[in-house]
Every structure is written in C-alpha cells, then in structure tokens.
C-alpha cells in the first residue's frame, strides 16, 4: 500500500502527526483569506447596500467622533486645570484638601502635563497622613481633611 506522502514527502508517524496538525491550520488560513470568511461574517453586497447597515454605520461613526471629542476635551480640561491647582500652592493661606487628590486621580498621570505631574499637591487623609507632592515628597503647607458635614442641621 502506498501512502499519500509516498512521492517525495517523508513518510512515518512523525509526518502523519505533522499533517494532522498542519491540515486544520492550513484549512483555517484558507478559510480566512478566502471569500467564504467575509461571506460568513456578512460582508457582501446585500449587507453593504442594506439601509439598516448604512444607518448603523452612520451611528457608529457619530458615536466614535463624540467619544473621541469627549476624550480630547477631558485631556484639555486636565491640562487647563493643572496650573490652577499647582500654581496656587505658593500663596499665603493655602492648604490642600481632598479635592486635589480627586482631580489628580481622575485625570491620571497620562493627562496631566509633564511639568505639573510631579508637583501636584495631595492630601493624605488617612490617620497620621500629611500633605505631600505627587512625587512622594512631603509638602510644607497644611492639609485640611474635613470629615464633619458642617452646620447642616440649621438648613
């Protein structure tokens, strides 16, 4: 009996094992690069000319543009906020509160400009915590971590 690999292809258990592995991979690659894959996904003429497809595509483009714009606006806002937060630390009577940390953590180090990212004032409101800079150094200004809601009962 002649095997399928008789003509110029090494025969034996190893070759059969190789064929058993490579054949499904080869078929998968053939399927992906052929039109069958695109057709299975639905990318054909009737899909592309379907008015529902065109409407969905338009909505995706609009939603993507809105999300990108919102993302850029947040980056811009963080950039604009940075000098307001950082430059005020040298003023008389300045103290750091909880909100600097909220802004810092919400913006993240990626959105804060490089010249402000290590000089952001932060409060450490845990017991025994002290005011610090975002690079970890202790700061000279005080921190105020208000836990009391104030005179709410009057209102």
């Amino acid at each position, binding site marked *: 009996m002649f095997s399928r690999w008789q003509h110029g292809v090494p025969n034996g258990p190893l070759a059969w094992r190789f064929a058993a592995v490579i054949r499904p991979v080869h078929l998968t690659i053939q399927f992906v690069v052929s039109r069958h894959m695109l057709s299975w996904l*639905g990318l054909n003429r009737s899909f592309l000319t379907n008015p529902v497809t065109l409407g969905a595509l338009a909505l995706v483009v609009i939603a993507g543009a809105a999300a990108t714009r919102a993302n850029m606006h947040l980056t811009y806002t963080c950039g604009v906020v940075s000098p307001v*937060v950082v430059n005020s630390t040298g003023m008389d009577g300045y103290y750091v509160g909880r909100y600097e940390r909220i802004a810092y953590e*919400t913006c993240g180090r990626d959105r804060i400009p490089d010249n402000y990212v290590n000089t952001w004032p932060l409060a450490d409101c845990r017991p025994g915590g002290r005011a610090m800079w975002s690079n970890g150094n202790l700061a000279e200004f005080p921190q105020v971590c208000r836990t009391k809601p104030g005179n709410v009962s009057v209102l």
Partner: protein
Amino acid sequence: MMDTPVGKARVAASIALWPPPRGHLVAFLKTPLAWVLLATLVGFGYMDASVRAETRLVCGAVSIMIDRQVFAGAYDGVSPTKARFMRACEGSAQPDTLDLRGGLTGRG
C-alpha cells in the same frame, strides 16, 4: 393626482425607502458583522459617558477647591489660567465664588 402614473411611482418609491422593510432588519441582524457594529456602538456610548462623567468630576473637584481657597483668602480674583479653566468647564460645575467676567461674586 394619486391615480396618475407619476403619483403612484412617488408613493411606491417613498414606501420602498422609508421605513426600511422588516426583511432588511432581519437580514442585518443575522450577520455577525451587524453584532460587531452594535457592540462597537455600545462601546463608544459607554466610553463617551464615562469620559464625560470624569470631566464633570474634575471640574467639580477643582471648583470646590477654588471656592475653599477663596474662602481661606488664598485667591482674590480670576487669573487668565482660572478663566481658561472656567471656559473649559462650561456646562459642568463652576466655582461659586468667582465670576468669569473678572471678579469675586461675593457668594463665598
């Protein structure tokens, strides 16, 4: 008018274009790419909402910070950087104590 061939053609064309026949929607939903499109749409919507919420959070936090600093006497007016911040945060929270036109509101 409706009995003329032109009128009939107009009515037929409008029916064919809008609303899309149910067959189009079913054919669309049967393809995997349609679900990819819908998932992308939901993902963009989620991203947009979460980023807008983060922007509102940043604006609110810095506005409260400014109000407290004004109350403590550290700030006494609107500098160009603060004006830029207030313009960027239009539609979100604004400092209660500062007026974009250049001064304190007196509400601190």
